[in-house]
């Protein structure tokens, strides 16, 4: 069994490093976008519309990854689009984790009517198709970065609440919790000081996965044109444009798709890798 475990660990290690590597690279590029992007992402050059990437015949050497139908530079738009993607991932991810974990802890540790109430909400939430729910919320709140983040938090808190609730229930039955109570610690303080640290690894794993989901949700919303205003470049809106001109200019779809694909894949692989790391059986 020992060598099998070693093999799993090594594979998990490579996976962790590769995905973390891409995320650091993409995050760095997004942060530095205003300085490293070769063009203004919004600048149109109608004489250079639908220029292919640099290695294809007929390309303009000024535009490395080509241009879209309005002559905007694809590379610069991807770099700037990354800013939106990572902003949503970080803010929405952390906010969702905080709300979901808190409700999950309350339901799992306090039990009783708190649990009944929260669990009922989770059931109702599970009956909504998530994509439709998010589109609905955006339509209600109006497009914009804040709306997207709120929509993600409102929809996805159940992902955290369900898992954390189950874990908190398990932890709550353990001796150390009882002894903390005997030692005179208050109920809420026990929950935060004793239980939370023990469910934190789970929360971190879910948070990493949630960031990938947030990136996708933002892309989907900008794909259906409900994200931030149309003049801000996002991967989803680039993909939407690329989808309509796919037969004339494949590069408008392909490059933002690669960026999105690798980012989502990396968040997910990072989460899975961390899960293995935290798993005491594998450790």
């Amino acid at each position, binding site marked *: 069994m020992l060598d099998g475990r070693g093999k799993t660990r090594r594979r998990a290690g490579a996976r962790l490093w590769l995905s973390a590597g891409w995320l650091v690279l993409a995050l760095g590029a997004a942060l530095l976008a205003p300085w490293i992007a070769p063009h203004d992402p919004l600048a149109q050059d109608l004489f250079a519309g639908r220029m292919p990437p640099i290695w294809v015949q007929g390309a303009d050497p000024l535009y490395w990854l080509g241009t879209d139908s309005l002559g905007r530079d694809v590379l610069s738009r991807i770099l700037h689009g990354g800013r939106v993607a990572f902003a949503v991932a970080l803010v929405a991810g952390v906010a969702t984790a905080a709300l979901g974990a808190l409700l999950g802890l309350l339901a799992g540790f306090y039990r009783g009517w708190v649990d009944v109430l929260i669990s*009922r909400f989770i059931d109702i939430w599970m009956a909504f198709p998530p*994509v*439709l729910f998010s589109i*609905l919320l955006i339509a209600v709140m109006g497009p914009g970065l804040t709306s997207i983040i709120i929509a993600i938090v409102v929809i996805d808190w159940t992902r955290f609440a369900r898992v954390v609730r189950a874990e908190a229930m398990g932890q709550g039955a353990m001796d150390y919790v009882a002894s903390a109570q005997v030692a005179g610690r208050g109920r809420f303080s026990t929950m935060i000081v004793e239980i939370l640290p023990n469910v934190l690894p789970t929360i971190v794993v879910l948070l990493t996965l949630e960031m990938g989901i947030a990136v996708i949700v933002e892309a989907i919303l900008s794909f259906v044109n409900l994200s931030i205003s149309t003049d801000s470049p996002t991967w989803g809106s680039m993909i939407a444009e690329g989808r309509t001109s796919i037969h004339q200019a494949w590069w408008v779809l392909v490059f933002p798709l690669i960026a*999105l694909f690798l980012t989502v894949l990396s968040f997910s692989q990072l989460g899975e890798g961390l899960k293995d790391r935290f798993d005491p059986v594998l450790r």
Partner: protein
Amino acid sequence: MLQRTLMRLATTLVTLFGVAVIVFVVIRVVPGDPIAMMLPPMATPEDIQRLKALYGLDKSIAEQFFIWLGGVLHGDFGTSITMRQPVLGLVLGRLPATLELSVMALVIAVIWGGALALAGTRWRGSKAEAAIDVGNGMALSVPDFLWGLVLILFFGVLWPVFHISGRVSPSLELPFTTNFYLFESVLRLRFDLWADIVSHMFMPALALAFPLAAIIAQLLKQSLKETMHLDYVTLSRTKGYGENHVITREALPNAILPTLTLVGVQFTFLIGGTVIIERLFSYEGLGNMAIDAVINRDLPLIQGIVILFAVIFTGVNLIVDLLYTVLNPRLRHA
């Protein structure tokens, strides 16, 4: 058993009521006025008032809710603001397209995921199993929306063998009386139409099936491998049965139950995925209509569609739950 069923039914109804309340309240705090969008810019305040009264939007939210709920219980979901037709008819007209797509995706996922699980068990510990694991990991990490885009790129553009938009070629004459095109084309023995419809549905169905197939493969393989260590499996092996027989005839029937429950829950996620996948492939189903309804602020239509989705979701969960009770002897006699 009966009591359990009734309890489940009751909680399902409570959930649906909750969904109805939330949708109703959420879309009525919309800042944009749907009525203003229907009228020409020079409409007078009296015109607006008349139209509001026509759609019942001049009453309080609670009043509106109970009027609407009363209608729903009589099968009246209101009238679509943009299409000026009863919501129920519109929604039921699109439902078959979405159901056919979801079921096709489910069938693909079960066949493919099942085959991968069996192959992974048959060649467990080998490179083939490792390859299946890596493939599953990839398929699970990336959602249907992205798989759809990848499929569009490969099979719509690079190697255009399948259609990537619409439900059926617009040039074809359709003799159908129902909206179950796929089903009816088989009944009418119109295999030319059937081929065209499948060629349109295959890409979106595959995109929806990818993640589910991976989940099925992963879980079924795990339970199969656990079952393969049990004594009765070893016994059948000592009786001289071949590996293939042992896996499919002896281990599979016992290993399949956890997967079955999971497939039920995951099927609802798959149905939820149709919303964006239909949009991506311009497939004329419920999801595509839902997005249009949201963009046009068509309140009655949005409500109808969300409620229908919720009914499908909770319905599938209910069926799976009951099926599980029937299939699991330990629960059956409880």
